[in-house]
């Protein structure tokens, strides 16, 4: 039976992930990390992916994975959003893994190696690619089977061992060593993007069309809603705590009605974001077409995360504008995620198609 609640197993998974993140990914340590030369935290990723097995959640047990569903993945993403942990979970364990799962060929048994956490992958598409209008126009496959071209704004590429590259209407696997991956200054400090350049790079064709890539983008968009929920929830909780503690005019600022009412509205937005994100995760885990649930969740959660983060900043006053306070990490994540995998406007447009509300 479908449900928008969390099962006991899902709550246990959440507690385990939250425990690790509390220990290894405090806001202060994330801030220090993103200022270093290695913004992705691969030590933490090893713990999550290999020791806890979250990298293999979507991979069947026969390939060494956990054989879980999008529902469990969504819970992990909520927690990762809540801590803006700089790990390639969405890019490797969701986007790349879904594309591989849909591919008929898996030379080198990539799935098993992803499941065990030995390998990290990335889908070489711009992070802003929408599931609805995706076309591969920038990389071409040569007659000799090598790939040439350039893909910009690829999230998670800098730490990938394998790149899955759409080219000339098919999907290829390329060892990262055969590509040039150049991280560029990124709005989202905790999920920097990179430019991937290929010069006659050796590649193995794993799918002869791009249906798996579209499925990956749709799955990614639907599950990103849960990450956005986590971001929004952290902003709401942190702001609430601040409003109770910060005094002006000899009273907690949270006692002013203008602020209380804004918080009530934000809370209501987040309540609905949770229902929408659960709806998408549940639909992606089920048998029926998840498209509408995904479009609804992404249209709502993308904007809500940004709005809550922006309100959080305003309600913190000056401290919210400082580099030292972790709030900006969440604002940057929220704003970048709003553009990722289709904008809210792209998803609303798709709602119009799916719900029979033509222009």
């Amino acid at each position: 039976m479908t449900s928008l609640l969390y099962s006991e197993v899902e709550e246990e998974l959440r507690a385990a992930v939250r425990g690790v993140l509390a220990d290894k990914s405090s806001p202060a340590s994330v801030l220090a990390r993103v200022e270093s030369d290695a913004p992705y935290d691969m030590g933490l990723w090893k713990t999550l992916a290999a020791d806890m097995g979250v990298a293999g959640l979507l991979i069947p047990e026969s390939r060494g994975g956990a054989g879980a569903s999008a529902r469990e993945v969504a819970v992990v993403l909520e927690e990762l959003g809540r801590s803006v942990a700089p790990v390639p979970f969405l890019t490797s364990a969701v986007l790349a893994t879904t594309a591989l799962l849909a591919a008929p060929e898996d030379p080198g048994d990539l799935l098993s190696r992803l499941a065990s956490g030995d390998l990290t992958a990335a889908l070489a598409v711009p992070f802003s690619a929408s599931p609805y209008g995706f076309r591969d126009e920038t990389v071409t496959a040569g007659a000799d089977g090598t790939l040439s071209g350039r893909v910009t704004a690829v999230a998670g590429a800098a730490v990938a061992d394998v790149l899955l590259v759409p080219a000339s209407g098919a999907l290829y696997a390329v060892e990262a060593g055969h590509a040039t991956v150049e991280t560029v200054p990124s709005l989202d400090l905790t999920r920097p993007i990179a430019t991937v350049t290929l010069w006659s790079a050796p590649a193995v064709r794993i799918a002869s069309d791009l249906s798996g890539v579209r499925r990956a983008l749709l799955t990614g968009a639907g599950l990103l809603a849960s990450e956005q929920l986590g971001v929004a929830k952290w902003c709401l909780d942190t702001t609430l705590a601040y409003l109770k503690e910060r005094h002006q005019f000899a009273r907690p600022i949270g006692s002013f009605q203008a602020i209380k009412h804004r918080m009530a509205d934000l809370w209501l937005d987040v309540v609905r974001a949770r229902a929408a994100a659960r709806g998408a995760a549940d639909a992606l885990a089920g048998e029926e077409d998840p498209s509408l649930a995904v479009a609804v969740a992404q249209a709502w959660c993308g904007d809500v995360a940004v709005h809550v983060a922006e309100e959080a900043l305003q309600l913190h006053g000056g401290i919210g504008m400082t580099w030292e306070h972790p709030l900006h990490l969440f604002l940057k994540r929220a704003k970048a995620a709003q553009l990722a995998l289709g904008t809210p406007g792209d998803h609303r447009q798709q709602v119009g198609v799916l719900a029979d509300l033509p222009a």
Partner: protein
Amino acid sequence: MNEDEIRARARAFREATPASDRLAFLRARFDAGLAWVHFPEGLGGLGAPRELQLAVEQELEGTPQLDPGLQAIGLGMAAPTILAFGTEEQKKRFLRPLWTGEEIWCQLFSEPGAGSDLATLATRAVRDGDEWVVDGQKVWTSGAHHARWAILVARTDPDVPKHRGLTYFVCDMHAPGVEARPLRQITGEAEFNEVFLTGVRLPDDLRLGAVGDGWRVAQTTLMNERVAIGGNAGRRGGGMIGMVAQTWRERPELRTPDLHQRLLRLWVEAEVTRLAGVRLREQLAAGQPGPEGSGMKLAFASLNQALTGLEVELRREEGLGYDDWTFRRSESVDFAGRDAGYRYLRAKGNSIEGGTSEILRNIISERVLGLPSEPRVDKDIPWKDLPR
């Protein structure tokens, strides 16, 4: 009793009971415990979990049904309050005709001087032997003109602070001294009334709960009111958004890019609000009621207002007209049967009735989010000394 047993019982009831006489059917359904299964046996229920009601409704689809509009206050507010605070005699006396709709109920809470601040109300009830004598004025009383009974809060002790001097009664709307006058609304009709209570004598056995405990009893009513107003989850794309969407589909000539964008935004908002309602019901069924309930009415009010406003605008030239301004006393709110203009105007009440949206935001921020309460300057002052 589990779901299978309840289904079997409902099927057996359906087979054994002729549906030709609506009232007889509803009475028999009550007596079979299939009215509201979570109520106790003998009072229309089976003492079963509330969510099993759905199974009963499915089994009895197509049989005579209640009138949810006309009976809204009885079913949604009076019944749970009577169940929680009534004596055995009161439960036996009131619940059956309330449920079958033989007796309609209204709510005598609001007064000209007491709306959001209900606890300041001034209607007096003075004890006289076995009776209470009630004097005062109520206002915005929906459906008072066809009500047999009312739930009433009155002041029995003016010398203590406002929350403490209240007592809760069932008011006999046929008693001498009860006069309901229609109040015309912005829609043209009169759904609500002002009700004058002049020397109305109520026997003490119409009191619900202890003398002075009226505020606590009223809380039960108000909590149920908000759930009743905001708690219907419905189906995807149904309800108010469904009406606008239908116009949109049938009338391509009305479409513009701007309206399209706004419609899609509202469609998404309606859908996530519906999903939050579904989730809330799952939480209730799983015995883990979440605080989401307080938010649903707030969400539906603003959504209904935005949607109905959009529909009037969408209709352009037709939006300039109005179906019927006749001043008459209406039976109940008729969103589906009237035109877009009526819906737009009537929806304005959604953020006022049953607690205004501002009061709901206060409640959410204080009780759900734990932010400090509004200053309560009147908390310790005897009611009679309050500035007014």
